[in-house]
């Protein structure tokens, strides 16, 4: 006996009704919009594409961590401060203390992941909302970052990382480009413009795929795989959906939350390292407001703020929307303050759409 009140759902509808639908619709909308208003500005030429891809990839790296953490039912508001902190630590260790860059990077990763674990430990042990605990770390880490930069160099910007990173084996993993041969070949075929003057004559304007983009894709694929295909992914959903129910059937909720705090810190550290290697410098004010930008990407991507529901691919699409809008308004010559207006509007629209879709899927009232 099938319940006559449950309507048969067509394959098409079934394929459409998914957590990422809001983000997919938003991404399509944003691309159509900018194709119309900025189609001839070079935004969709190879160098333009590289421009917004890199920005989107930056957002995506922190959004993946924030997404998985939010699905376990927790927030990390210290992501932005962690980015500034990690950058300054790398610069102090490598430039001021003269450590090899690879050692500085690995040490920084260890410190950041330990701080993520401390965040998680405090949340789990005290039972306080992660909103408050990580808000405290937003201030603690930012303050420490500025203080450390000033006592070691009397400045808040530490340069010279590029010089010390020369020839290092680990730095290119965060700062280089790959597939340069392929892109040279594209240029030779005339698919990509080449420089016509200067010392890089004959080289393509886009020299390859930046490692930042490779990291972003890698983290997105890993995150989506972890969440949807593994046992641990089931525990992530369970920990956020109802921690008590999950504990009663033996899910190690505390361990899951702890690991996700550490993973979020890891993502922030990847972001920071790539930025430091690319710019060749670290600044104490880097990463400002990044925690909110990450959360916006995740929410546009269809995740529920209270946990238990969400999608890594959705969060990545949220990051793409974010990056395209930010750079697109620049390409179209619009007033840059409009970026925020536009972003806020998209946020509201996406969340409304996502709420409807979620109710359709989960039967919430």
């Amino acid at each position, binding site marked *: 006996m099938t319940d006559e009140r449950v309507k048969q759902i067509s394959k098409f509808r079934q394929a459409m009704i998914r957590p990422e639908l809001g983000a997919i619709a938003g991404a399509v909308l944003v691309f159509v919009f900018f194709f119309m208003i900025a189609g001839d500005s070079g935004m969709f030429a190879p160098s333009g594409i590289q421009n917004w891809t890199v920005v989107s990839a930056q957002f995506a790296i922190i959004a993946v961590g924030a997404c998985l953490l939010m699905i376990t039912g927790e927030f990390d508001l210290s992501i932005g401060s962690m980015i500034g902190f990690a950058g300054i630590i790398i610069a102090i260790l490598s430039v001021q203390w003269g450590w090899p860059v690879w050692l500085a990077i690995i040490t920084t990763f260890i410190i950041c992941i330990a701080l993520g674990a401390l965040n998680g430990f405090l949340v789990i042990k005290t039972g306080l909302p992660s909103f408050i605990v990580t808000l405290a770390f937003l201030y603690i880490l930012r303050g420490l970052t500025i203080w450390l930069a000033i006592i070691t160099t009397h400045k808040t910007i530490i340069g010279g990382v590029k010089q010390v990173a020369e020839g290092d084996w680990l730095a290119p993993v965060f700062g280089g480009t790959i597939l340069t041969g392929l892109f040279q070949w594209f240029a030779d075929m005339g698919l990509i413009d080449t420089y016509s003057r200067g010392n890089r004559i004959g080289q393509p304007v886009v020299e390859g795929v930046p490692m930042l983009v490779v990291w972003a894709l890698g983290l997105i694929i890993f995150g989506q795989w972890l969440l949807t295909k593994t046992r641990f992914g*089931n525990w992530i*959903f369970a920990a956020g959906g109802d921690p008590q129910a999950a504990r009663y059937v033996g899910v190690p909720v505390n361990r899951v939350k702890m690991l996700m705090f550490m993973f979020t810190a890891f993502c922030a550290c990847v972001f920071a390292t790539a930025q430091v290697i690319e710019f060749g410098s670290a600044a104490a004010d880097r990463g400002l407001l990044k925690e909110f930008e990450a959360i916006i990407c995740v929410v546009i991507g269809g995740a529920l703020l209270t946990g238990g529901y969400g999608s890594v691919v959705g969060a990545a699409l949220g990051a793409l929307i974010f990056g395209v809008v930010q750079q697109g308004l620049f390409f179209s010559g619009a007033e840059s303050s409009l970026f925020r207006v536009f972003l806020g509007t998209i946020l509201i629209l996406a969340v409304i759409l996502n709420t409807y879709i979620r109710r359709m899927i989960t039967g919430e009232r």
Partner: protein
Amino acid sequence: MTTPLIEMKNIEKHFGPVIALGGVSFDVRPGECHCLLGDNGAGKSTFIKTMSGVHKPSKGKILFEGKEMNFNSPRDSMNAGIATVYQDLAMIPLMSVTRNFWMGNEPLKKFGPISIMDFKKANEVTMAEMKEMGINLREPGQAVGTLSGGERQTVAIARAVYFGAKLLILDEPTSALGVRQTANVLANIDKVRKQGIAVVFITHNVRHAMAVGDRFTVLNRGKTLGTAVKGEITPEELQDLMAGGQSIAKLEGSLGGTV
């Protein structure tokens, strides 16, 4: 008479100065549905939580299959074969039926050092088990939130049985349900009992208890008021016991015997 699957002997539980349980003894035999009745605050929840490993008893012994048990966590009791279905914590509505069904026991498929969840197997088993219990799912990926309250309890019962529970503790499974859903859940309790599983059914509804129970134990203020066998007690007597005797007579008088 078969030997009891679980025996609780003189269980006491103190929370600071409060004596929640003052020496409760209780046993369940395989294939039996033992109803635990009592008004709010009688200690039913505390009692089953000592059985399921959430609380450690302050005094008393738990014998499971004749061996003395010392549960430190719900995991311990689960490994022994005790499954508890909580009224409001049975399922996570945002997750799919399959994900809920296998939560904590996910089937794995190995690829070298990496193992992933075997969704094909998980989905097939879930669909089959649900059909067995009389629930026709549209698809295994359907969220639990789309199921009715009775169906959710049934999924939880099916899950416990599938994972080899010898003792199934049901914490007020019918208290929030409508008439038809209640009938469904009671029918499923009956089905489970006939498979030889021991069932502890907590309720404060005498009619629901009478429908499936073999024995009835009434708790009041942390103590047992005795155990009765089916056929030796009337619903009215049970009702009186639950309410603590005299007061119900007055109450019932003013309500015309409808309680």
